[in-house]
């Protein structure tokens, strides 16, 4: 039982990092993208290849995964980000599938027996779950803070402007295409980093784990929590992981089929769109010019 809770926390952390990336793309800039599984896959493979084949440390592969995903995000972003709404959605959906198929064709089994991550001589063993929980959630916190700061800086405001009204944004001297690409690349890079942690924990990568469902789950996380709200997407990640491991957690695997979670995610998306489109926590309301600019999220609640 405790084992499952730990597992859920680890995966919730990985998904929270991915959701922070997706939130940057969908929540801040308003682009409906469905290829986070692709970036997740690229990050995982980058780590696997660097650690296994080149024998480099996990910590070096972390920025490498981010950079590789970012570059691929850029290459894809330049032609596709001219599209809007549904069209962008379809194009990115195709892209996620392309990445997975390329990975399958390279090696359908994937890569296994990847060296373990190490920090100051401490080796992260897969059975020692608390270490992973601390590691991953520390990074969730880091990315949360970095992206909250982004949202409340000039760049983040420009992204919000692009989401609200592209024509008005252009009339305010905002280069709409540039900010879309920046947002897409940042989101992709963070997706890659999530892949890194996934690899460090499972020590195997296989193309079968980066399906379209992963992208849907990440989008679902963002929609459920609240678009454009950092805290909300982390909460969303925890809820989504609890739902998807609910049968195992309660020992009801015989009663509830494995496909049920896919139905539930679909249902969540529809129900949220109809009754609470802003998500559980809603949008982040940041008050500029309050007496004290809060540094951390907890303090901010008081100011709002």
């Amino acid at each position: 039982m405790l084992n499952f809770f730990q597992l859920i926390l680890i995966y919730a952390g990985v998904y929270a990092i991915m959701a922070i990336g997706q939130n940057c793309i969908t929540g801040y800039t308003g682009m409906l993208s469905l290829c986070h599984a692709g970036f997740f896959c690229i990050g995982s493979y980058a780590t696997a290849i660097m650690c296994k084949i080149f024998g480099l440390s996990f910590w070096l592969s972390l920025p490498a995964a981010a950079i590789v995903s970012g570059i691929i995000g850029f290459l894809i972003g330049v032609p596709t980000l001219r599209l809007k709404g549904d069209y962008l959605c379809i194009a990115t959906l195709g892209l996620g599938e392309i990445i997975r198929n390329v990975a399958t064709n390279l090696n359908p089994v994937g890569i296994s027996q990847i060296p373990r991550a190490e920090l100051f001589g401490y080796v992260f063993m897969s059975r020692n779950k608390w270490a992973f929980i601390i590691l991953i959630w520390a990074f969730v916190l880091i990315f949360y803070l970095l992206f909250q700061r982004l949202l409340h800086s000039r760049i983040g405001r420009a992204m919000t402007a692009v989401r609200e009204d592209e024509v008005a944004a252009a009339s305010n001297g905002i280069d709409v295409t540039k900010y879309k690409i920046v947002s897409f690349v940042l989101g992709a890079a963070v997706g890659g980093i999530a892949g890194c942690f996934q690899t460090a924990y499972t020590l195997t990568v296989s193309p079968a784990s980066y399906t379209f469902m992963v992208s849907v789950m990440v989008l679902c996380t963002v929609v459920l929590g609240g678009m454009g709200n950092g805290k909300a997407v982390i909460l969303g990640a925890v809820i989504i992981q609890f739902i998807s491991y609910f049968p195992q957690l309660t020992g009801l695997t015989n009663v509830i089929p494995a496909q049920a979670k896919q139905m539930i995610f679909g249902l969540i998306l529809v129900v949220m769109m109809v009754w609470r489109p802003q998500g559980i926590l809603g949008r982040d309301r940041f008050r500029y010019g309050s007496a004290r600019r809060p540094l951390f999220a907890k303090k901010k609640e008081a100011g709002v």
Partner: protein
Amino acid sequence: MRILETQNLTREFGGVIAVNDVSFKVEEGLVTGLIGPNGAGKTTLFNQITGMDKPTSGKVIFDGKDITGLPAWKISRLGIARTFQNIRLYRELTAVENVMLGLHFKVGSDPFRHRFLQSLRSYVFASGENKELYGKAMEWLGFFDIADSAQELARNLPYGTQRELEIARALSAEPKLLFLDEPAAGMNPAETAHLMSVIDKIRSLGVTVVLIEHDMKLVMNICDQITVLNFGMKIAEGTPNAIKTNRDVIEAYLGREEDF
């Protein structure tokens, strides 16, 4: 001095010629009115000048530079700001955030060079920069007497305030030239009177204003120069008094005498 000039500007949409060979001139420091019946091509002309759309042929000269076909964000950074006929505010953002976005490219030494470094700076020193931008934005809201609504969402503001907020957002970028597309549309007489005083204040800042407007009282009272368009063509230009008595203009608005 001539701040803006279009030379034989034409814009065709398929078979429709929305703007036909228009040479439109704006003198620095004056308020220029652009009038004409519905569908005369006034907004299309605005869109060509501000880069929202590209002209089929012809040239736009701003401040001695050819800006024909530049993207809207570049034209905006050169010093042309505008508002829209159907209000385009960032509806889910507060009033003060709207104006802070108007100040977007006013950060840093040059709006065109070292922008990547500037972005990094903006990220690293976000809190200081936010404070500075917030201060400036509040000043602009104060200029329009709407500082009380600073923390309201733009979509919740009353109509007249939304119009003024949009002008505030455009003006915060300290443009040389401000285009107002039907600023008084849908306003009641009291709001229109207030708008007139606002335009007077803008003029006293030294900003050249070009406005499209159907409210003749406002146009005749406030404009120094008026250009009249009809069916995409320029039919007259001159002072309000000259326009009032111009035969072609009366014809365009009321029809020929023989028609009755």
